[in-house]
């Protein structure tokens, strides 16, 4: 216990000292301490990695792949220890954490889903662990800051002159933050081709931005919308599986029409249910995107406002937000699925409706 506290304290101190240390290091290397402001862009940026159909792989997709591999490794190790029955520390400390988290989530799924909790659990837990790992992976040092130097794709972005740093055997480029140059719309759309050729002939661009290799998958709408679509489609699948074709009476309530009077109202409410189902996709996708993207921008801004110590606190907030958003996404998936499996209008509300 005391050892763990010491390790945590040293780690905390290191995190606090990261800002001062790196800026002194850069001053020592003859680079100005002014950092280059990163590009804040909503669409994922393409990396020079060829992908299907001549497209370029985007950096969020690359990160998703890395996170997938990490998750497979993590759960592979956990399964290996679990089969051997060696989950007690110190043998499987990491595996132990994974197992404990899974168990908490499993109990949660059982308490919400009832007897169906067991079958809903895999989807919700997959979403939870994928989103959690993706959110925390982008907080690692080097993520969203190490990447390819290239001319900017967007207009009104601050571009900087590159500068070579030789550090022993290592040599790498950084951006000189002293003289930002705003790109204009004409430059990006009109002269983009010419500038790219120019850069190729020289080997490097004049006014550059950094396209990071690793960017949080949840800052890309494709990732969150994909998860949202999968979840909402699976909600319908579970509804049909539990109630058969009667499930669709939730949307187009034909039995209610026969009752007349209040039944017409019920029919209209059923139609509204379709809209609410569609709006759930939007709110699922944009809740995750909004929170994580806002966190990224917050850390960018805070790092440039107060470079020392303060950003560490915001990293702490981001760790909490990543966990909460992953939990909320998985929790809502669980609740929606268990709501779809319960009969909505027929058994419980059917008889009071006729009384009115």
């Amino acid at each position, binding site marked *: 216990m005391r050892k763990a506290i010491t390790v945590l304290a040293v780690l905390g101190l290191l995190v606090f000292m990261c800002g001062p240390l790196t800026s002194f290091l850069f001053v020592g290397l003859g680079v100005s301490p002014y950092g280059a402001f990163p590009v804040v*862009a*909503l*669409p994922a940026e393409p990396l020079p990695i060829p992908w299907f159909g001549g497209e370029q792989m985007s950096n969020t997709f690359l990160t998703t792949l890395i996170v997938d591999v990490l998750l497979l490794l993590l759960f592979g190790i956990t399964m290996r220890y679990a089969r051997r029955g060696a989950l007690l520390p110190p043998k499987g400390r990491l595996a132990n954490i994974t197992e404990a988290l899974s168990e908490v989530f499993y109990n949660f799924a059982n*308490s*919400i889903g009832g007897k169906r909790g067991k079958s809903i659990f895999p989807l919700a837990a997959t979403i939870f662990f994928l989103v959690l790992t993706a959110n925390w992976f982008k907080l690692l040092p080097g993520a969203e800051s190490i990447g390819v130097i290239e001319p900017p794709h967007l207009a*009104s972005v601050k571009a900087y002159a590159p500068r070579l740093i030789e550090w022993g055997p290592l040599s790498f480029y950084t951006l000189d933050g002293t003289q930002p140059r705003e790109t204009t719309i004409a430059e990006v759309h009109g002269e983009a081709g010419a500038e790219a050729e120019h850069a190729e002939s020289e080997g490097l661009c004049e006014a550059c931005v950094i396209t990071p290799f690793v960017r949080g998958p949840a800052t890309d709408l494709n990732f969150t919308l994909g998860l949202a679509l999968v979840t909402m489609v699976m909600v319908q699948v579970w509804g049909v599986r539990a109630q058969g074709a009667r499930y669709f009476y939730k949307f187009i309530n034909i039995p209610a029409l026969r009752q007349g009077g209040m039944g017409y109202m019920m029919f209209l409410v059923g139609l509204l249910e379709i809209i609410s189902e569609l*709006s759930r996709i*939007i*709110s699922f996708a*944009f*809740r995750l995107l*909004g929170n994580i993207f806002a966190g990224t921008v917050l850390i960018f801004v805070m790092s440039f406002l107060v470079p020392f110590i303060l950003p560490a606190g915001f990293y702490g907030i981001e760790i909490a937000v990543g966990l909460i958003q992953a939990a*909320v996404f998985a*929790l*809502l998936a669980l*609740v929606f699925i268990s709501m779809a499996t319960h009969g909505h209008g027929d058994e419980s509300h059917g008889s009071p409706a006729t009384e009115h």
Partner: protein
Amino acid sequence: MDLLAARALGAGLAIGLGAIGPGIGIGLLMLGALQAMGRNPDASGTITTNMILGVAFTEAIAIYALVIALILIFVGI
């Protein structure tokens, strides 16, 4: 007014005004949930679950404002 300036202003107004209602709503939700938990601590598990669900639905309104703001800033008109 410059188009870029108008878009920036519109985005700021959209998210700023759109966050007022959900902010009040989430505050009220939290108030109710905490009072309920204080009166009946045994039921805090189910109360928390339902509270998170309610907060998520309330938050969705703010998210629509955020979508408008993001469209104004990042999507070319």
